[in-house]
Each structure stands twice: as structure tokens, then as C-alpha cells.
């Protein structure tokens, strides 16, 4: 195996350190959010809705009071964890989109605690550990494929997402199924649930798990030698190798750590989300958590602290979006709410996209140059 086969791509990280507009990364994210909201407003106006009323409903539904804020935070909890999965690997120079499948597997593992009895606190910890281990084990597949065969992680994680999806479909329908309630798995017992933090909302103690994991990742990446190695390998793999860093080790580490994050997201959604505390057939409460996490990571600039803020924003969009549906005399239907959210995500992604396709930017610049050069010629004629 040659070195080039396992080389992570340093180019991925350029965006984290240099921004398109030259603004501070956080400001650029804010700018993208504003652009997205304006595009959303324009769309709503075109389709005959009142954007101001709709956004007022969104804002009130997201941050208008303690109930609303708690709901927004609750919605953001799993997104923090899946965003970290993406960001850890990106910092290590890889484009890991396997969080989706790892969430499913983690959730299925968490449900397994329903089959034995333990004292309350311990039962919860065992469930968290199950989910973390399951997520990590599932991430080993793409990691080993990359390390031993040089398989690109984008391909392998997509494949593993599908395998996880159908595996968990099967487990939910035939293995973990509740005999009396065929539409879902057995319920996680009271002793293994995250207690609800704010009464009358979805917010449970799982929020502390998410914040703790984010702080742990921050500490590990920026305040330990191992984290330094991961980041160095991500930035310039060749230099890192020359400096004696084992790239194989950093790749494995970032995959496994990411898998733990996604697995914990599975635990948070099954053990910490009222009222079902089980996986419903078709996984309707787990779908897209991994992919939404990538958007959160992008907006949070792949920094754990940025991700916490971005998750609060996305949680608010989702929680407020529910309220937009019935607020005022001409409420905005869910389809429109999702179009608005899509516009915001797209606006956030534009700087990222331009970086991913530098050729686009280059051809744009060439076009401008060409036009500006032609102008004097035309004037001369």
C-alpha cells in the first residue's frame, strides 16, 4: 500500500481557515443565514404568504419563551452530536458522511437495554455505552476499508448508511419488535431514560451529554498532542508524516470518535425523547439526523463551540417551523417551511461549495477579466 492511498485530503480544510468573503468565519455564517432568510422571505412573498408574520411566528416559536427555547435546544441535541461526527473527520482531512447510518445502529443498540434490568442510573449509562460502542463499531467498516484497501470514505460511508438502514429496518420489524405494538420496538424502561429537564417539553438531560461531548472534542483536538496530530494530518498529510505522525492512527481515531458521536445521537433520540422511547418502524424519528448534522457542522465552521451555536439555530428553525404552520390567518404550510429552511442551508453552503469547486471561482474570475479586457477594445472601436 502506498502512502497516497491513505492520504487524507488537506484541501478540504482550506475553508475552515480562509473564508471566501474575507470576513471572520463566524460573521460569514451569519451573513449566509441572513441571505438564506431573505431568500426564504422572497419565496414566501411570491407564493402569497406574509414573510414578516411568518418569521415572527418562527422567531416566537423558536426563542419566544422558556418552553420554546427548551424545545429548540431539544431539537438541536442530536444535531450537535452528528455534526461533531462530520467535523472531527473533516479536521482529520476526511469527508465522513456516515453519521446517518451510525445513528441508526446506535439507536438500535440503545433499545437493547430494554431486555435486562439494572438500577436507574447505571441502566442509563449502560445504554449510552451500548450506543457509543455500536456507533464506533459501525464506523470501523469504512475506516478499515480506507486503511487496508484505500477505499474512499465518501463511497464506503454511503454504502454503510444503506446497510445500516436496512439492517435496522429488519431489527425493528423482526427482532426488537414489541409483540403488542408491531409498529415499534420494545420501549426503553424508565430506569434507562434521560429524565426530562424542563417539564412539559422534549428537553431531557441528554443535552448535557451533547454539550459534554462537544467540550471533550474541543479539548481533545486543541489541547492534547493527539488532537494536534489529527489536525496536522488533516491540514498537510505529507508534512505530518514527515514530522513522525502516524496518519493511519489519526484516520482510525477520527472515524471511531465520530462514530461514538453519532451513536450517542442515536441514544439521545431513543432514550431521551418523549413520549415513545422506542424506534418506530420506518425510523421516522431518526431519518436525516446525520445529514442535517452536516449542515450544522458547516454553519458551525467545524468547530465544536461553533456547532453548539449552529445547532441552537437549526433546532430553532425546526421548532419555529412547527409554529409557522398554524400561526396567523394565512399560515405557512410545512412544505413552504421546509423550502425556507432549504434556502438557508443552501445559502450557508454557497461559500463551502465555491471552495469545493475552486474551478468555479477561477472561471468566474476569468470571465470578469475577459469582460473587463474587452471593454477598452470596444471603446477603441
Amino acid at each position, binding site marked *: 500500500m502506498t502512502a497516497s492511498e491513505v492520504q487524507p485530503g488537506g484541501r478540504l480544510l482550506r475553508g475552515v481557515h480562509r473564508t471566501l468573503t474575507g470576513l471572520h468565519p463566524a460573521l460569514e455564517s451569519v451573513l449566509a*443565514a*441572513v441571505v438564506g432568510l431573505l431568500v426564504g422571505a422572497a419565496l414566501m412573498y411570491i407564493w402569497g404568504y406574509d414573510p414578516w408574520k411568518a418569521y415572527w411566528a418562527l422567531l416566537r416559536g423558536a426563542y419566544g419563551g422558556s418552553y420554546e427555547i427548551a424545545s429548540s435546544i431539544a431539537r438541536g441535541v442530536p444535531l450537535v452530536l452528528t455534526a461533531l461526527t462530520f467535523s472531527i473527520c473533516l479536521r482529520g482531512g476526511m469527508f465522513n458522511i456516515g453519521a446517518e447510518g451510525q445513528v441508526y445502529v446506535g439507536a438500535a443498540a440503545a433499545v437493547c437495554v430494554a431486555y435486562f434490568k439494572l438500577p436507574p442510573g447505571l441502566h442509563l449509562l449502560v445504554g449510552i455505552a451500548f450506543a457509543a460502542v455500536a456507533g464506533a463499531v459501525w464506523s470501523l467498516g469504512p475506516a478499515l476499508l480506507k486503511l487496508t484497501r484505500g477505499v474512499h470514505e465518501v463511497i464506503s460511508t454511503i454504502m454503510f448508511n444503506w446497510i445500516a438502514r436496512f439492517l435496522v429496518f429488519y431489527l425493528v420489524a423482526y427482532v426488537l419488535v414489541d*409483540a403488542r405494538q408491531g409498529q415499534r420496538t420494545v420501549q426503553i424502561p424508565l430506569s434507562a431514560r434521560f429524565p426530562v429537564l424542563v417539564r412539559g417539553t422534549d428537553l431531557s438531560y441528554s443535552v448535557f451529554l451533547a454539550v459534554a461531548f462537544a467540550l471533550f472534542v474541543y479539548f481533545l483536538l486543541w489541547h492534547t498532542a493527539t488532537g494536534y496530530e489529527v489536525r496536522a494530518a488533516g491540514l498537510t498529510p505529507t508534512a505530518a508524516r514527515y514530522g513522525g505522525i502516524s496518519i493511519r492512527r489519526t484516520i482510525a481515531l477520527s472515524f471511531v470518535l465520530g462514530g461514538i458521536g453519532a451513536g450517542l445521537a442515536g441514544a439521545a433520540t431513543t432514550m431521551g425523547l418523549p*413520549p415513545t422511547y422506542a424506534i418506530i418502524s*420506518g425510523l421516522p424519528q431518526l431519518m436525516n439526523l446525520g445529514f442535517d448534522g452536516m449542515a450544522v457542522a458547516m454553519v458551525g465552521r467545524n468547530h465544536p463551540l461553533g456547532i453548539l451555536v449552529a445547532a441552537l439555530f437549526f433546532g430553532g428553525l*425546526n421548532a419555529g417551523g*412547527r*409554529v409557522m404552520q*398554524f400561526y396567523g390567518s394565512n399560515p405557512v404550510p410545512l412544505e413552504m417551511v421546509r423550502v425556507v429552511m432549504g434556502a438557508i442551508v443552501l445559502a450557508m453552503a454557497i461559500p463551502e461549495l465555491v471552495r469545493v469547486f475552486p474551478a468555479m471561482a477561477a472561471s468566474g474570475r476569468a470571465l470578469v477579466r475577459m469582460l473587463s479586457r474587452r471593454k477598452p477594445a470596444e471603446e477603441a472601436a
Partner: protein
Amino acid sequence: MRKWLGLALVVALVAAPAMAQALKGKVAVVLDVGGRGDLSFNDMGFKGTDQAAHDFGLEMVEVQSATAADYLPNLRNLARTGQYDLIICVGFLLGDALAQAAAEFPQQKFAIIDAVVDAPNVMSIVFRENEMSALVGALGAMAAAHYGYPNVGVVLGIEIPVLYHFEAGYRFGIDWGNKKAAETLGTGPVGLLYTYTGSFSDIALGKAATEAMLAQGAVGVYNVAGPLGIGDLEAITEFHRNQGTRSGPPYYFGVDANQDWLGNGQHGLASGMKRVDVGCYSAVEAVVKGTFTGGITSLGLAEGGVGISKFVDLLEFIDFGISAGALKPEDREATIANWAVNRGTVPAWIWRAVDELEAGILAGTIVVPTADTVDEMQAVRARYTLGAP
């Protein structure tokens, strides 16, 4: 950023005219992740509530759920406003969330379709699906006897109690039809092919299950898995194309809505209709008339809550399909003509026998068995084995 955005919005609100509070009553419909556009269960829930809101002069809002994690917050958000006279949950998947929301908001009136939530402020609307499934089963069994097919089929979704109602009634109906056919034609009994696909969303599973049944000589396939019916119909349409026929057996039996018009009415012989719209309408009506009470409201043939599709329903649902953009207006006449031709392939004595069964159930002289648990279902299966050893 949010501070500025918030400030901007506050300014905008102050500038905007004060929002007038609606004085008339309000009802809300909460849908599960399936959402609108299924031309069946969810669309009928919307249609019934919309009609009731229109008739009684109420305001109606519709709340969809992007993920299952939205069910409880949606119910709480609506109940917290205290503005809604009734909140209707369409679909049994909302049952867990409603059980909690109903306990948190005891003053709020709720209704739920297809699930039983034991709370004094919840009207649980359930249907006696066994009754119309018996009619479909009898029709299928007699058609099979007439054409010499050995089996009838049914494709089901996830193994839940609601679906046991369908299976139990279907089994009874096939048995009834077998007896009738033996009297009339002197033929032997036809068997039942049934598959629980474990899915209400994977259309390919419906197609595969139907293909297997058609290969074993099923005269028709009853769809008891919502959207999987699209796959069922696709398999039946392909089967007809391969054997070069345009109507006749094998047939498609629709569910919930009148689905006879699907595929331009060529193969849909009849539908086991479950009028979710009637259920929603009656819930709103009960609130308006002050007769709302918690507990179970069971709708069957007698209440017009279920039934086998008739010509008038076909016209109503063709218009429903046209308004949803699923059927072209210019295909309306052709669809009706195709349907009539297809219905004509089943002799009149069979239709009379189906009417006889319907009258018997309405009069109470014929009682269709049902099942709510695995044990009860096993008992019904043991009683009506229908070709199984």
C-alpha cells in the same frame, strides 16, 4: 445576529397592524409523517375536517409532522394556545404522543383516528374494517370461483391490531363467498394468500408480494398497506399486459379511499372504503353540537364509516383525484367507462350476493368476526383456514 434579527422583527411587528383575533371557532388537524398527497388516509382526514369546518363556519389549520419527534411538540404547541375547540390526530402513530398531550392538557378536546387513547378528553374513532373487508373477501372468492382461479390474495402492512380487523373480516368474507359459490355453481372452496410486508411505505414490497400471489393463481389482490397498493396495481397491470387483456381478472381491490379509479379504472374492481373523512367530520360535528364525549366511537357499515365502493363514490373520488392532480380531467369519461367494463366482467349474481351479505351485516343477522390481539387472530385463522394446512 439573532439579536439584530429579533430587533428587526420586533420593529416589523410594531409597524404591522395588530393581528385581529379570530372570534369564530378553530379546529386543527395533525398529520403523521406520511403527510398530505396520499389520495387516501391523510387526504381524507383533511377533506373531512375541511368539509366540517366549512359547514359549521369554523377556521381550520393543518399541521404536518416532518419527523416522528414532531408529534408531541405539535400537539403541545396547538393545545398551549388554548384556541382550538378540537385537535384531530389522523393516524394511530400519533397515539403515544396524544396519550401524553391529553394528560398534560385535560381541558383540551382531542380526537384520534384509528387508535384508542384512554382519556376523558379524547374521542377515539375506530372503524369496523372487518365489515367492509368481509364484503371484499366475498366478492373475491365468488369471482375466483366463477373464473376458476384457485386463490384470492391480500397484501398487508405492519402486523398491528388495526390490520387484524381487515384480515379477520376478509377471511370470513372469503368463507362466506365460498359457501355461496358452492350453492350457486357447485365449485370447491378457494384459498387465501396473505403477506404481511412489514411496511407502509416500501412500494416495491407490495409489487413483489402481488407478483408472487398472481403466480399462484390469485384472482385479485386486496391492498391493506396504504401506498403499497401502487405496487400491487403495477404488478396487476403488468400481468394483464403480458397476457394481453385489458379487463377482467386478476383484479385490484383498493383500500381506505375509493381507489377504483387508479390506473384509469382498468383493474380496480372494488375498494374496501374506510371513511376517515366521515370520522373527522363526525368528531367536529360532535364538538359543535355539544355531544362530544371521550371514549371509543366505532364506525361501521351502519354508520357509513366503512363500505364497499359504489358508483357514486367513484364519481366523488374521481373528482378528488382530479383536484389533487393525480388524474387528468380529460381521462374522466374513459376512467368511468373502463370501470364499468371491468365491473361487467363479474356476473350479476355475485353483486347480488355481495348486497345480500351487506344487508345481513346491517340487519345484524350476520356477525363478522374481528381480532385485536395475536391470540384472537390465531383463533380466526384456525376457524377459517382457507386452504392452509
